[in-house]
């Protein structure tokens, strides 16, 4: 009797272990035309924001690292602040996300980040801190910048590079097609987004480990 009890206990243990082992399932990066996964992050002013808070509005997610020269191209030239200001006036929510791990390039404590943002002229709604890279990896953010556009229904309508010319050269901004602009303008006019994905370009996101 005792022996069979032991056997049963062992079996249950194995069942539990096996069940747990099979529950770690890989998460795929979100795809365009599919729901953008929800997340909650704290901004540099200590406020929490969830993607789901902005249901009914267009949301732009911008992966940010101020010390990356590709990001510098867009802030130094004033292009990124200009886009942020323009689209926020149209009711778009613009969230910059910093997935740099502490101790890596682009990570600053909240106060320093705010000071740096002021210096760079950032006009986004919030800078969200993602020091563990959870949201960055959830979205498959590879580079800074890496852009995602989400429509009022919560569907991802664009992901990829900010524009069509991968370079750090400010002069290329005017030559290039800005895919975020293209996606937002098309979607807001009820048209199909012409380019739904484009390869992201920039510095690698400085994830932890």
């Amino acid at each position: 009797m005792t022996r069979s009890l032991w056997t049963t206990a062992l079996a249950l243990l194995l069942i539990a272990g096996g069940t747990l082992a099979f529950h770690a399932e890989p998460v795929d990066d979100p795809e365009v035309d599919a729901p953008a996964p929800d997340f909650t992050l704290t901004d540099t002013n200590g406020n929490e924001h969830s993607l789901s808070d902005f249901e009914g509005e267009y949301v732009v997610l911008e992966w940010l690292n101020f010390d990356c020269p590709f990001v510098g191209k867009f802030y130094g030239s004033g292009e990124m602040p200009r886009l942020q200001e323009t689209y926020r006036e149209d009711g778009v929510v613009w969230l910059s996300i910093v997935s740099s791990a502490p101790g890596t390039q682009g990570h600053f404590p909240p106060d320093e980040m705010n000071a740096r943002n002021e210096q760079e002229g950032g006009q986004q709604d919030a800078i969200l801190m993602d020091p563990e890279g959870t949201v960055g990896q959830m979205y498959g953010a590879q580079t800074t910048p890496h852009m995602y556009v989400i429509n009022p229904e919560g569907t991802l309508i664009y992901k990829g590079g900010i524009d069509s010319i991968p370079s750090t050269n400010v002069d290329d901004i005017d030559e290039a097609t800005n895919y975020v602009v293209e996606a937002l303008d098309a979607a807001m006019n009820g048209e199909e987004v012409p380019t739904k994905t484009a390869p992201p370009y920039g510095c690698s996101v400085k994830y932890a480990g």
Partner: protein
Amino acid sequence: MKQNHVSPLPRTVGFGVLLLLWMLTPWASATAQPSDDPSPHSEAALVSEVETIAPGEPFTVAMHLQMDDGWHSYWKNAGDSGMASSIDWNLPEGFSAGEIQWPHPTVKEEGPLVTYGYSGEIMLLVDITPPDDLESGTEVTLAGRGDWLICEDICLPAHADLETTLSVDADATPDAEWDDAFAQARAQHPRPAEGVSVQAYRSDGSFVLELEGDDLPDEGVRFIPGEKRTISNTAPQPVMRDGDTRYLALQASEYADGSTESLRGVLLGPDGFSWSMSDRPHPALAVDAPLEGEFTGDLSALSEAGTGASSTSLSLWGALGFAFIGGLLLNLMPCVFPVISLKILGFAKKSGEQPRIMRRHGGLFAAGVVVSFWVLAGLLLALRAAGEQIGWGFQLQSPGFIALMALLFVGIGLNLSGLFELGTRLTSVGGTAQQKASGYSESFLTGVLATIVATPCTAPLMGAALGVALTMSAVEAMSIFTALGVGMAAPYVVLSSVPALLNRLPKPGPWMETMKQLLAFPMFATALWLVWVFGQQVSIDGVALLLGAFLLLGLAGWVLGRWPAMQVEGRTWMASRAVVTTVVAGALALALLGAGTGAPASASTQPTDANWQSFSTEQVDAVRDEGTPVFIDFTAAWCLTCQVNKRTTLSTESVQQAFDDKGVHLVRADWTNRNDEITQALSKFNRSGVPLYVLYPGDGSDPVLLPEVLTPQIVMDALNELPDTRNDNPELASERP
């Protein structure tokens, strides 16, 4: 005096701050972008292969790039991040420059990203064509601006003004200083394949590169795409071998736009590998293979690995391991246990026999189990291949099968309780070959029987292992089923081959007859349960017909017992056996007739509890869109684990109350009968059988899968993890920590 004391302190502090700033400044400027050095951590220069150039005669120059240790620059396709180096030429009138001839890159892993580039020293060669009308004796200056990104952990843009002056002569003369460097650079250029044929195919949205040739490496082959939008840089590139052919599975880039017409890039072997070439081995092959339609071979194993699993072998071995353990656990299932007990009884009875014979019995039992698994698996795979929507336990969705199983269990029960004995066992008492042979076939058949009755009890591990199996190639799936069978038979093989263990079994004696008769009752209980399942699938008329079949079976058993083979002869034997055959045939007919009576009015797809909605993908999606949490109970009447969970957990008051408190929408997906929609839903979770418990939180995040064996606590814990969807309810909101 006091004032004099005050001043030195701030001065010291001030000096300290200055010192600190001074110490920090160089460090800071080294990590931030130094604006004064246009090419940090690297130097570039324009060098020429020739000292003098001749009119109209092309020559080669190079941007020579020297990088500090630990820093790197990028190839023409930088990969997931970074930027290709470039040269913006400013050439004299009439000169033209070709494209950069890139050395083959190396693969660099940057965290979760993969990039392609160079470290150390490289030469980026460019062919320059001068005009025909150059005058000898003059000098020309070639100029341009080189731009590159220099990266360590961080990246800095770098540029250099490139310039070199060459004199014009009737003939070009090489520059001895750079000869070797150019030759070495050319040796690093990818070269078109020789002796290796490369073909590219589409394969279900991704790609397959087929290589054919002698001495190809078995693994470690890597294709580096020359363009950004073709293949994923991070996905593994599993290799399948087939004689002299290698198939490389390449996962399409998530940024692919579907316009890929050919695979262009570089093929590298494992570290230190060189491809055979006619003159000398070469490290990198240039690939430019147009995509030639859809790949037709069997690559299921490869694509499985290519879509994110970090290693094929690991997941296959893991699945095999779990299948083996699952097989072991099957022995403990309530529906298998009686059959297994019989087997142990058999062992006890035969424990006096020679070890050789015992081993053979164990082996045959194992063979019976494994062969039955193969038959079931083959059937499952064949039906899958034919496009049928089925899963594990599919045979139990057929009322006919259930009816025959129930008859089988009743038959076994009657036999065990002593109503009749099957002939052969008593025909001869001596140790004749015939008896041994029948004993052997019995061992085999017990294995078969154990497997058949085990199938309803989808042990939790088995469900997962089978889910994996059904997404794999036929060969791998069969290996999984083999592992299951071996696992199930393992204890008996061990028992039968270790005489010491056998000796510890109780000695044979009259107790065995008592035990045998007692074991009839689990058999009857199983039959009872099968009748209940049968009743879910057919009408009450069907159940009555099946019970009638039991009656006939009882009659046949009685005839066999009343006129046993030993004691009757000639016409009596003939007559009694004719009656038995007829009556058994009648029983079978009744059972199948009952199975054909069709579903009862309250079909089992209608859940009996009022709280539960029946399953429909559309409705579940709709409810989820509303932000309501949804719990789905994938179940079936023939699934014992499901029924136990329902009784002990899901139907309990506390759990129901918890569901209610959280506003969870309850859905029951009843798989008792075939239902393609539910089969599809199961396969989304990589499962091929029930039970499966899925909890969708209301916030659109990923569903939570609960274990197959539930307790109220597990469900409550999962519910407590739910995001609070009732923020508008102040009472609930205040309860949150």
